[in-house]
């Protein structure tokens, strides 16, 4: 029998990046906020300290910071005609957990989407006509514009202290930045990180070919910084243990280093860790959330009443929580009715390997998670797609993050998989190879979606989320095209051998690509194709907000974190200045 607790104003589901910012803002505005985090508390000292944290086996291979599959997994199938089976060990995507969430072990790559991305459906129709896209594609406009989000992108970047070089300041193109970016009001809060060797080689080749290289925007800071919350960060030392690891240096922008010190001091906020939310509770009208039910680490069940609930639990968990709670109508791909779980998308990743002579010491282990140099000439809608037969694109960059040898030991394609020949190739190429990353958009198609699995359950007896996904042919065409361009760059870099690896189908959960799972609680202006309105308020339950990459109608060419941060501040603005003043539907559709 659940123990009923004293009501609070707001329950925040998940105390990761989004939850920390939401909780801090609402607590600072005077509201009583409870943050429910299923994982454990952890802090830079002592939990993230080296050298113990520089353990490739523990953190890369055994995935120590990730969600524990023994308790909670996801089932997967490429298409509806197959049976969904559990992802028994993570590989392709790595959901995080714990205080600070995935933002503790992210790479720090901090991007804005471009203006056209937010009105992609409109832009695609105008440019290419109605018949351009494959029949299964479901591109949608977001319901917000880049201009709406610009001040919030800015605020997020200044919270993190992101290191970069602006390419477009109020419409003026800036040398050294990305000329394709949409206008920003001011430059990044700190200058770009130092460029590693592979970035410099790429820069020269890309420039020679007439492209526009620029430094990757990095939230592993280039210099010491004090953010507007008064929290200080240090300079990153390029240790090469970024993604999948926590930073010991206070140099990566994570909740612990940007906002938790402020949040945890606020008496209006209470953090409860080890708490697994089971469902959002609704009243008899089913149009109002009354709070949540959760089970703590000792297995005790509690009901936490609240006036408002905010889902900040990562895209997949946000979707699952709506489905488990019976909020909104689950999406059915055969009828295309329902919206929860609709428009699931991912990221289309390809690589190019450039093998150099033995006299070029690349030193891949000297890198941060977001150092390096890239071009946006083939990203998003930055190039003319006429005659190419696809929408979208990829950034291309020398942005390798590490030289950790269990996973990183590149060899040419005809190398034996084991034996003396394998070892010889590893020794010859380890320090003389540059890997180019092609980070591609992911379009939504009607048959890619999320729902609840009918068979498999989590440790609490609740159905797992089921993912039905394969790469749309559109995205594979895009990958093939951009890879061919990237191979030319590899050759211009002076490599003796260049090998392109364009993404091929079918999508497999067995190879790491990214943890950029998007969609499922799509935002928009039309309730028949979205779950939340433009303010991220649920169409069905007005005192429920959902924030995360689950709001994306489709995924663009860049990492989602920057855009999630912008959406977070955008939604907080609507909560504080509109909703909490007059709790009601903010959009009447």
């Amino acid at each position, binding site marked *: 029998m659940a123990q009923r607790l004293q009501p609070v104003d707001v329950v925040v589901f998940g105390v990761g990046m989004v939850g920390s910012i939401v909780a801090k803002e609402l607590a600072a505005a005077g509201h009583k906020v409870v943050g429910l985090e299923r994982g454990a508390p*952890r802090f830079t000292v*002592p*939990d993230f*300290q*080296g*050298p*113990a*944290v*520089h*353990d*490739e*086996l523990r953190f890369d*291979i*055994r995935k120590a*910071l990730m969600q524990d*599959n*023994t308790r909670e997994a996801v089932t997967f*199938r*490429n298409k509806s005609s*197959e*049976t969904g*089976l*559990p*992802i*028994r*060990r993570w590989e392709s995507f790595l959901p995080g957990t714990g205080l600070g969430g995935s933002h503790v072990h992210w790479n720090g790559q901090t991007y804005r989407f471009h203006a056209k991305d937010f009105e992609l459906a409109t832009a695609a129709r105008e440019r290419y006509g109605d018949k351009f896209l494959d029949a299964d594609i479901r591109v949608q406009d977001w319901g917000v514009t880049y201009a709406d989000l610009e001040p919030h992108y800015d605020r997020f970047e200044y919270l993190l202290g992101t290191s970069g070089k602006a390419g477009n300041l109020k419409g003026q193109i800036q040398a050294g930045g990305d000329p394709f970016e949409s206008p920003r009001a001011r430059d990044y809060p700190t200058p770009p990180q*130092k*460029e*590693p*060797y592979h970035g*410099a080689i790429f820069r020269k080749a890309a420039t020679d070919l007439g492209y526009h290289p620029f430094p990757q925007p990095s939230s592993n800071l280039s210099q010491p910084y004090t953010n507007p919350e008064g929290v200080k960060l240090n300079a*990153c*030392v*390029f*240790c*090469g243990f970024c993604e999948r690891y926590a930073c010991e240096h206070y140099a990566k922008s994570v909740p612990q280093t940007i906002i938790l010190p402020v949040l945890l001091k606020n008496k209006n906020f209470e953090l409860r860790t080890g708490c697994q939310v089971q469902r959002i509770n609704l009243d008899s009208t089913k149009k109002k959330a009354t709070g949540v039910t959760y089970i703590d680490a000792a297995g005790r069940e509690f009901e936490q009443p609240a006036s408002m609930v905010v889902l900040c639990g990562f895209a997949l968990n946000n979707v699952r929580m709506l489905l488990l709670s019976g909020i909104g109508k689950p999406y059915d791909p055969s009828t295309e009715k329902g919206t929860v779980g609709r428009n699931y998308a991912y990221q289309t990743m390809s690589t190019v390997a450039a093998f150099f002579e*033995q*006299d070029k*010491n690349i*030193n891949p*282990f*000297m890198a941060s998670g977001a150092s390096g140099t890239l071009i946006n000439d083939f990203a998003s809608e930055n190039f003319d797609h006429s005659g190419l037969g696809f929408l979208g694109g990829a950034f291309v960059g020398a942005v390798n993050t590490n030289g950790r040898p269990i996973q990183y*030991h590149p060899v040419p394609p005809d190398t034996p*998989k*084991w*034996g*003396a020949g394998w*070892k*010889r190739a590893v*020794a*010859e190429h*380890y*320090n*003389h190879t540059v890997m180019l990353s092609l980070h591609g958009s992911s379009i939504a198609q009607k048959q890619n979606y999320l729902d609840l699995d009918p*068979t*498999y359950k989590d440790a609490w007896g609740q159905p797992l989320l089921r993912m039905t996904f394969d790469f749309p042919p559109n995205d594979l065409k895009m990958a093939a095209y951009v890879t061919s361009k990237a191979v030319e760059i590899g050759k211009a870099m002076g490599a003796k051998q260049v090998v392109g690896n364009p993404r091929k189908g*079918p999508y*497999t*959960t*067995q190879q790491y690509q990214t943890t950029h799972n998007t969609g499922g609680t799509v935002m928009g202006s039309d309730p028949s194709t979205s779950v939340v309105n433009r303010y991220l308020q649920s169409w069905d339950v007005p005192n429920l907000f959902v924030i995360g990459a689950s709001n994306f109608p489709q995924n663009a060419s860049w990492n989602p974190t920057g855009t999630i941060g912008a959406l977070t501040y955008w939604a907080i603005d609507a909560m504080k200045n509109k909703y909490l003043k007059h709790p009601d539907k903010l959009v009447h559709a």
Partner: protein
Amino acid sequence: MPKITRRGFVQSIGAASLAPATLLTQAPAWAADAPKPPASDGDKPLYLFFNADEAAFVEAACERLIPHDEVGPGALDAGVPNYLDKQLGGSWGAGERLYRSGPWQQGSPSQGYQLPFTPAELFHNALRAILAEFEGKTAFKDLPPDQQDAYLKSLEGGGKDLGGVPSATFFATLLQMTVEGYFSDPIYGGNKNMVAWRMIGFPGAYANYYDLVDKHGIKLDREPTSIGSDRKGHIHPDPNVPAKL
């Protein structure tokens, strides 16, 4: 030896920059630099998971996957079988982080591992079947290397059922764990004295490169460090370093 041009020298650092190019023709760096491990009885690990026959097969098989030669250390030099033994005998082997509920059915390659076996069960079942196959014949460890390779390739190619474990799955797991045992930090029992890191030039756990990252192309010729390295460069886990996560 490659031609040493004046330009080549100017772009390099003294003698050490020649190291990679001449790696294959001179005495291997990994042998010259690495401190000698303690002799004789220190060489044989105490196996807690493998029995003697299993250990003999695993030792011989790993050594074919990564053999000792003039390029670099082999699996036995690096202590890979010891790594496997400790992993399989520990929480990883017991099924840490593995979603273990049924029902079980074979999926597509995209759906990955769908067997009920923990890594420990997978190894014990497969090794039992393999050893049974060699019953009454020359032991795997006593076969000449080319026949050992042929046998391993037959496992790799699939088609054999090893006590319920598809041979390709067993082989892939063995190879993956061999690479882990070769390249992981020595505190896990493999990569003894960081010999594999020395071969490729990976500097290890201590990694402050702020002043070096923009010195493009330098040869960072230094002793690698392990998580367990003390001030003198000896490796042992440091009980004062918490690993709380």
